[in-house]
C-alpha cells in the first residue's frame, strides 16, 4: 500500500513534501501511474496535486498569459483565449492522447514528464514560454528550453514543483501551424512533430520564423539555421526544400521501436514542405 496525499493548498503541499521527501507528485497520473504499474518507478508515497487551486486557472498578467500547471489539456482547449491567441498550442493539445487522457492530463505533467515526444512542448518552444518553478522557499522563472534538460529530466530540484507556464501572445496576424506524425490518428506517440509560428510582412515575406521539432532529439529542437534561411523569403517549395535540408542536418533522431532515425530525419525536413504558400490553411491569431 502506498500513501497518497491530496493537499488542498500550497502550504499543505510543502508540509507533505518536507515530511516525505521521496514522495512523487502527480496530477493527472496518465504518465506517472502508467510507469508505476510497469514497475519503472516505485515511490514510497504519492502526492496528488489536482486539488490545489493555486495551480489551476488561466489569467492575464501584463503581456503574459499565465497557465496554471494544473490545467488539464481539456480545460486549455476549452479556453477561448488559447484557441484564439495561441492556436499553435491548441492544435498540439488536440492531438495529445485521447479525450479522457486530455481530461485528466495536465500541461504541467506534460512538461515534467519531459518526453522528447511531448506534444505540448514544440508549441511552447516556439512561443518562447517561461516556466515558473515553485518551492517552499519561493519561486523562480526559467525559459522552457532551460527547464527541460534532457529526456525525462527537468530543472526541478528537491521539493520543487512546476506551478505555471507563461506565454506571450504573438502579434496579431501571426501564422500558427502544428503537425504531428504518428502511427495512428489517436492514442499515438509522436514520431516527428513540427510547430511553426511565422510572421509575414506586407509582401508575404517572412518577417520572423520560429520553428520547433519534437521527437527528433533528446529535447525539442529549435533550428536557428532554418529560421534564418526563411527570413525575408516567400514560402515557396524551393525555399522550403532548402530549409528542409538544413533541418535534416540539425535534428538528432534515434532509432526506436516506433520509427528509425532515417525516417524521422527525412520527415522532419518534409514537414517544412507542408508550409508552402499555396497550401496554407488560414490559421492566424
Amino acid at each position, binding site marked *: 500500500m502506498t500513501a497518497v496525499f491530496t493537499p488542498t493548498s500550497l502550504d499543505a503541499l510543502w508540509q507533505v513534501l518536507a515530511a516525505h521527501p521521496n514522495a512523487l507528485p502527480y496530477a493527472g497520473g496518465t504518465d506517472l501511474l502508467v510507469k508505476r*504499474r510497469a514497475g519503472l518507478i516505485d515511490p514510497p508515497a504519492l502526492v496528488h496535486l489536482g486539488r490545489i487551486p493555486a495551480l489551476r486557472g488561466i489569467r492575464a498578467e501584463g503581456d503574459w498569459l499565465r497557465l496554471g500547471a494544473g490545467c488539464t489539456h481539456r480545460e486549455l482547449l476549452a479556453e477561448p483565449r488559447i484557441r484564439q491567441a495561441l492556436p499553435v498550442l491548441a492544435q498540439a493539445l488536440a492531438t495529445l492522447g485521447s479525450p479522457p487522457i486530455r481530461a485528466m492530463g495536465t500541461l504541467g505533467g506534460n512538461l515534467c514528464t519531459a518526453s522528447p515526444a511531448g506534444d505540448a512542448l514544440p508549441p511552447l518552444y516556439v512561443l518562447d514560454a517561461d516556466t515558473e518553478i515553485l518551492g517552499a522557499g519561493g519561486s523562480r522563472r526559467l525559459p522552457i528550453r532551460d527547464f527541460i534538460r534532457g529526456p525525462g529530466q527537468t530543472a526541478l530540484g528537491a521539493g520543487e514543483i512546476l506551478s505555471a507556464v507563461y506565454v506571450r501572445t504573438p502579434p496579431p496576424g501571426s501564422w500558427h501551424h502544428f503537425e504531428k506524425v504518428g502511427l495512428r490518428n489517436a492514442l499515438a506517440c509522436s514520431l516527428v512533430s513540427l510547430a511553426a509560428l511565422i510572421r509575414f510582412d506586407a509582401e508575404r515575406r517572412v518577417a520572423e520564423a520560429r520553428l520547433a521539432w519534437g521527437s527528433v532529439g533528446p529535447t525539442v529542437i529549435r533550428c536557428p539555421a532554418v529560421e534564418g534561411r526563411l527570413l525575408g523569403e516567400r514560402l515557396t517549395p524551393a525555399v522550403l526544400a532548402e530549409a528542409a535540408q538544413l533541418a535534416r542536418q540539425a535534428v538528432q533522431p534515434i532509432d526506436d521501436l516506433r520509427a528509425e532515425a532515417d525516417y524521422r530525419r527525412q520527415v522532419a525536413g518534409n514537414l517544412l514542405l507542408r508550409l508552402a504558400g499555396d497550401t496554407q490553411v488560414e490559421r492566424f491569431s
Partner: protein
Amino acid sequence: MKIQLKVNGQDLELEAPPDRRAVDLLREELGLTGVKEACGSGECGSCTILVDGEARLACLLLAAQLEGQAITTIEGLAQGEELHPVQQAFVELGAVQCGYCTPGMILAAVDLLRANPDPSPEEIRVGLSGNLCRCTGYQMIVEAVAAAARALRDQGRSA
C-alpha cells in the same frame, strides 16, 4: 482511509487503501462490474467513467482522488427501466457486438454529447477516439451516437 463520495447518485462512505485503483474499487467493493478493464494503462478507454460529468479513466484514478467526487458508471445511466437515449440507440443500431467496450464507449459518448449536442460524424469519431473497439469497426457506434444526438435534440434534452 475513509472516502466519502457519490456513486450513481448514492452517497457512500468507503474504507479503502488510498492507492487502490478506482476501477478495482468500483468493480470489487461496489460490485459495479459494468466498469471494465482491458489494458490498465489508459490506452483503451474500457474503464471510462464520468467524474463530475467528465469522462475519466478509472484505471488511472486512485481512491484518494475520489474524495468528494460524484461518479457515474454505466449502471447509473438508465433511469430505472428507461434506457438513456445513447443506450437505446446502441441497442437499436447494432453498436453492440461483444459488448466489452460498450460501457466506456457509451459514457464517452454522453460526455461528448453534453459538450457538443450536434456533432458531425468526424467530431463523433474524435470524441470516441480514446475508446478502442475490436469488434465493430466503429461504423455502427458512430451512427448510434448521431441517432442519439438527434433523439436528444428532438426531445429537447441534454445528454
